[in-house]
């Protein structure tokens, strides 16, 4: 029987966890699970996996704006019902995958997907995102839902993906290029190990809402939240308990605002984008790497963030021209040396890019090896 507000505990069900994945596996997957022999990417966005049994599964990967309506998901279901016996999946980078068990079923599926567009013209299900290209951007909430962002997420991602759309539907780069976006230093996108990271940063210390701070926040928690101990107790003229921030010590991490709503940092001109490059996650050839800050700040430029889009495009272009096959952006930069990276990309090397945090010393150059 239905939910009874007067007795919420009545036959309540909890702790059942997610649905069991096996219910959701397409038959060909279920049958050959753990017995796949090899795969091939037949064309951008289209993969085949061959099993020991000889069975094959053909996967068509399509891009998606991660922010999706019920309506669009239903449409994806329609496609899956029509071609895939009612199965589909999402990837770890927010793309959708439609799977069929025979080569003959691929073309009709692909053609159908390519023809589906929003009335205003953009693709609903662009095919691509495989191999040595640019796949979907892992991102976060931004101005659509979060309280701490320095930038928007969905809009920036849309603008950048429009800009590199050619590479989404192609596999002509030296290696995969993984772009990620996080709208504040909390880095919900975990962009810290991406080939190219778009990161929202603040540049103005928090304001103190003196009238309210003592009501809204646990002052000691706010003080403790600051990694640089920049926050100290204070009193307003009117004698209210409050806080002050030593702006010189502030590095704009926003952790105080996370703990205390009366300490907003975000600012029309103060907040914007930093670009990091050269991170990776795979253990292929080289070990996983953190991304490095190469552009300290780009202003917020809605709706199309042109400076950011061009920065991403030109870094990819220079990389595509210069790097060896299989070489990720970070591996390329380390091989040619970071002095060459800045020379080739034409990006200025400013004091902001020199580490001055905990492990700073370990990033300085202790050698005479350098390139003129």
């Amino acid at each position, binding site marked *: 029987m*239905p939910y009874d507000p007067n007795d919420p505990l009545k036959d*309540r069900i909890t*702790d*059942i*966890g997610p*649905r*069991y*994945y096996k*219910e*959701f*596996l397409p038959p060909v*997957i279920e049958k050959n*699970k*753990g017995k796949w*022999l*090899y795969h091939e*990417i037949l064309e951008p966005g289209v*993969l085949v996996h061959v099993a020991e049994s000889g069975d094959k599964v053909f996967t068509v990967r399509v*891009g998606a704006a*991660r*922010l*999706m*309506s*019920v*309506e669009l998901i*239903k449409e994806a279901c329609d496609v899956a*019902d029509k071609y895939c016996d*009612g199965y*589909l999946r999402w990837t*770890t980078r*927010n793309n959708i995958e439609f*799977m069929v068990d025979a080569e003959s079923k691929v073309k009709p599926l692909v053609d159908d997907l390519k023809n589906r567009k*929003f009335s205003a013209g*953009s693709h609903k299900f662009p095919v691509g995102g495989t191999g*040595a*290209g640019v796949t979907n951007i*892992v991102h976060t909430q931004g*101005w659509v*839902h*979060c*309280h701490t962002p320095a930038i928007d997420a969905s*809009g920036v991602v*849309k603008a950048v993906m*429009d800009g590199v*759309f050619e590479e989404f539907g*192609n596999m*002509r780069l030296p290696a995969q290029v993984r772009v990620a976006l996080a709208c504040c230093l*909390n*880095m919900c996108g*975990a962009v*810290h*190990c991406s080939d190219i990271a778009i990161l929202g940063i603040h540049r103005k210390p928090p304001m103190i809402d003196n009238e309210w701070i003592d009501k809204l926040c646990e002052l000691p928690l706010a003080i403790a939240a600051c990694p640089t101990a920049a926050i100290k107790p204070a009193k307003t003229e009117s004698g209210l308990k409050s806080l002050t921030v030593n702006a010189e010590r502030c590095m704009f991490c926003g952790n105080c605002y996370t703990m205390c709503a009366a300490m907003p940092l975000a600012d029309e001109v103060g*907040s914007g984008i930093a670009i990091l490059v050269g991170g990776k996650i*795979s*253990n*292929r*050839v080289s070990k996983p790497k953190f991304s490095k800050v190469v552009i300290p700040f780009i202003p*917020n430029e809605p709706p*199309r963030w042109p400076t950011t889009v061009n920065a991403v495009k030109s870094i990819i272009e220079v990389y595509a021209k210069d790097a060896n*096959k299989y070489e990720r952006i970070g591996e390329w930069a380390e091989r040619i040396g970071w002095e060459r990276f800045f020379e080739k990309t034409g990006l200025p090397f400013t004091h902001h890019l020199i580490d001055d945090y905990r492990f700073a010393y370990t990033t300085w150059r202790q050698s005479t090896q350098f390139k003129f």
Partner: protein
Amino acid sequence: MGKHNTPMLDDLEKGPWPSFVSDIKQQAATGKQKLQAAPDDLLGILELTYNDKVTHWKHGGIVGVFGYGGGIIGRYCDQPQQFPGVAHFHTVRVNQPSSKFYTTKFLRELMALWEKYGSGLTNMHGSTGDIVLLGTTTDNLELLFYEMTHELNQDLGGSGSNLRTPECCLGQSRCEWACYDTQEACHQITNEYQDELHRPAFPYKFKFKFDGCPNGCVASIARSDMSFIGTWKDDIRIDQSAVAAYVGGDVLPNGGAHRNRDWGKFNIEKEVINLCPTGCMAWDGKSLKINNKECTRCMHCLNVMPRALRPGTETGASVLMGAKAPILEGAQLGTLIVPFVPMEPPFSEIKDIIEKAWDWWMEEGKNRERIGELMQRQTLQKLIQVLEIEPDPRMVSEPRSNPYIFWREDEVEGGWTRDIADYRAKHQR
């Protein structure tokens, strides 16, 4: 055009990449969602933000379903009068199934439920892996939860100082390299620790991610406090004839991942042998040799020649710990703690590791201190000790270079207490 005038957002309807603006508008048009005005008002407040360049969302208060300390993120906008449809706009985290396969039946049911109780907007998926239902009001939460559990047999995911929703790569379901069943491991661990997932008992959040091999398709080494990455102990399986096929150019290298550019004829020396980080491979023109003892299983050669090379058969996982985002002390990647652990159901070996680590962290961890930060504060030695495992050079990339060793008193003959008088007897002032 929608309820609000949104010229900037409308510009984002142009261009080839799927437009979230067009999509929100199409949802608005259907009017089927319970929060009728939500899609329009979301566009409205976003357009306003594009003008102001400062978010219009406020801190979320404590919002949730009865008995759970996680799964819902409370959210309120700071212009409720102007945008009543999103005045209250909480998100619901729904625990996705392992590696995100779905039947249309399930998805349609879930979507119907979301139209019935929410904004009709989602994130597929959240960064941690959940299905994120984007925006509803408090009064809808219990109903949504009740029907989801009763009719969809589906539970919420994690938030707050809880275990977060675990996530895995697709693994054996569709990948030839999976060294263990990431889906089963993810599912069983998720269910084993439901209490930790729904009821905050930790100093801070805790994340598990399961990668089937060192390629790391679910990014566990960067994004999870405890990361399980598939690996193998024995030899890479080689099909010499397939190697010859690659060399002969009959098969495209790297599964065709580079096919849209002419990189010239495949050169096994240049593209495989010389790129092997350990230099443990040799090609004599006829057959490929791998000195497996020296191989570090980086995956490169397997990636380049999937038809010729396969992982060994004595498989399991490496366990890494401590990955996290930069707040507060800087980002961390996972550190190798257990080089090899079997990964067979019921996964007792890893449960043992998990529980010892949690006991230590819950005992010693400060408020909002991730386990990776605790590892730095209390040393790797300490973690090893609580896990009751032996120090292993594989845990470090190099031994310490500083001589600042913290000796324990029991290691030093005669202990630490000495009598200055005895010393002075031999050494005058």
